[in-house]
């Protein structure tokens, strides 16, 4: 039995369905991210779990209790907001202890709990400060401590790092994950940043236009995207169009050159136009082994990015970007140079659905 169950959740505003057929079971202590572009329904779904939006239909169960009809202040879920939402009129200590005071816990219990939380977020000396005396990152840590102080069943984070600069984001996301692991608290994290989702999550729910595109571990989502959207949204991807030659053997022709796809063409017919995806890191100019796919083209662009050199190779109509590590011992190739790229068969993924020719 999962700890948090979301069953066939649906939300419409008038005629517009913003969340459709959302099903998810989250185990106790699991860290799950909702990942998708703006407007995909991830925040709306989170807010339904928190109780700030009422679902049009469906159910939400936490620890085997149906909370669908409960108000937010009856669900014991902690929430961290994008805008921090720390109380401007309260000190850090008062803010962190707010939920405990609302629950009428005795002062003898509140004080040590607040101190424990401040230590957890590494702000033990900031108890007497007000929000205007804190940086954005510190305010968000206080918001996290406030949410955790009441020992919620579930922790919900709505793009908590979006308002922070890049360096702080990286350090704070590691802190959030470390705190979550140490407390073992079931967590839902909403983000549009794939790097955040990939680095922090046990599982990722990729959403688009109110629907779930794919649910899986970061490894599965990145390496085995099931739809064109997931493939293009998560990570950088080369997407090529080809004509299926032989679905049984996985042979497909890209710009007149035949290659073999490792999987995904079994349901296709010969002559179908299909999109295939290839990660830049799977492509190389060096390895020309016989069992690898090869495509002949011309080097169109070379971008020196420091430790990485990004090369774009043009075929007739398609192009592939590949990344190689900078090698001080050999100069990067030049534009206009003929080049043969190679990649393993299993790295070429056919995306779902035939396309018009």
């Amino acid at each position, binding site marked *: 039995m999962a700890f948090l169950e979301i069953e066939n959740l649906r939300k419409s505003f008038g005629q517009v369905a913003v969340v459709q057929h959302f099903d998810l079971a989250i185990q106790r202590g699991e860290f799950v991210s909702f990942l998708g572009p703006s407007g995909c329904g991830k925040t709306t779904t989170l807010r339904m779990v*928190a109780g*700030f939006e009422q679902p049009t239909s469906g159910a939400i169960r936490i620890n085997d209790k149906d909370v669908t009809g409960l*108000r*937010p*202040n009856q669900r*014991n*879920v*902690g*929430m961290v*907001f994008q*805008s921090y*939402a*720390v*109380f*401007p*009129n309260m000190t850090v200590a008062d803010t962190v202890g*707010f*939920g405990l005071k*609302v*629950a009428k816990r005795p002062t003898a219990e509140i004080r040590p709990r607040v101190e424990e939380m401040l230590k957890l977020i590494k702000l033990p000396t900031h108890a007497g400060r*007000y*929000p*205007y005396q804190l940086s954005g990152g510190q305010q968000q840590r206080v*918001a996290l401590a*406030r*949410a955790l102080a*009441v020992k919620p069943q579930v922790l919900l984070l709505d793009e908590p790092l979006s308002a922070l600069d890049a360096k702080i984001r990286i350090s704070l996301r590691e802190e959030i994950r470390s705190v979550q692991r140490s407390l073992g608290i079931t967590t839902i994290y909403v983000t549009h940043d794939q790097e955040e989702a990939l680095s922090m999550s046990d599982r990722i729910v990729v959403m688009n236009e109110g629907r779930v595109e794919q649910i899986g571990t970061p490894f599965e989502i990145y390496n085995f995207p099931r739809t064109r959207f997931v493939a293009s949204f998560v990570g950088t991807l080369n997407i090529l169009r080809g004509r299926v030659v032989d679905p049984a053997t996985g042979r497909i022709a890209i710009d007149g050159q035949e290659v073999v796809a490792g999987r995904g063409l079994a349901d296709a017919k010969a002559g179908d136009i299909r999109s295939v995806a290839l990660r830049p890191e799977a492509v190389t100019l060096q390895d020309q082994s016989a069992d690898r796919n090869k495509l002949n083209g011309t080097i169109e662009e070379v971008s020196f990015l420091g430790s990485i050199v990004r090369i774009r190779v043009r075929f007739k109509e398609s192009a592939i970007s590949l990344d190689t590590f900078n090698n001080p011992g050999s100069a990067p190739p030049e534009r206009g140079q003929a080049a043969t790229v190679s990649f393993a068969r299993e790295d070429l993924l056919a995306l779902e659905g035939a396309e018009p020719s």
Partner: protein
Amino acid sequence: MKRAKLGPWLAIVFGMLYFVIPLIGTFEFSLRVRRGEYSFDAYRTVLTDPRFQSSFLYSTVLALATIVVGVLLVVPTAYWIQLRLPKLRPIVEFITLMPLVIPAIVLVFGYLRIYNSSSLLPLTGSEWSTNLLLTCSYVTLALPYMYRAVDTGLRAIDVRSLTEAAESLGAGWPTILFKVIFPNVRVAVLSGAFLTFAIVIGEFTMASLLDRPAFGPYLQLMGANRAYEPSALAIIAFVITWACMGLIQLLGRGPAAAAGKR
């Protein structure tokens, strides 16, 4: 560059003279009770007048009651409009502007028609109920200023997120209003309170027609029957007003106000 700076300074100087010269004239006139020398006799007469003390006290108490009722009415209303019913904002703003359009004498005649001693709700039948009626009329008169001040204060904070944060921590509506919202609109509420105080202290029409011993009718009585004392009263009223403004500046300081500086 120098010519460009001269213009604004000239405007400031003329503006100050426009406000200060009549005040200086009034103050100077109020010192002229004794022929040939300046004295504070007019002030002594006013401040020792039992009617001044009682009417000022009466109006102050009513002002405080008006402020409390006004705050309890306006803050939750403005909060609810901002949080849940933003489409109603234009309608509510229109309603709060009505007291500026409808003359006070029309309002008080309406009161006398509805609440006279032979009506279903005879609020003019006793002193305490007439005081209550006067307080309600003052709340109405102060509504445009109180609502605007509070609405501006609420727009300066993230009402939705603060509410949701408090709710997610188990807080109910009373806790959210009194522990989270009210403290963060304190400066706005104080601004509205000051405006309310100034309106109530100087209000004449309603207090006079409802026959209450307020400061406004006392001012009018002094003005009709004495020469120098009205000027002294005017200066005293200004001093009280400036003192209120100073108190608001002082009490408005704090983390919430300082946060606005960040």
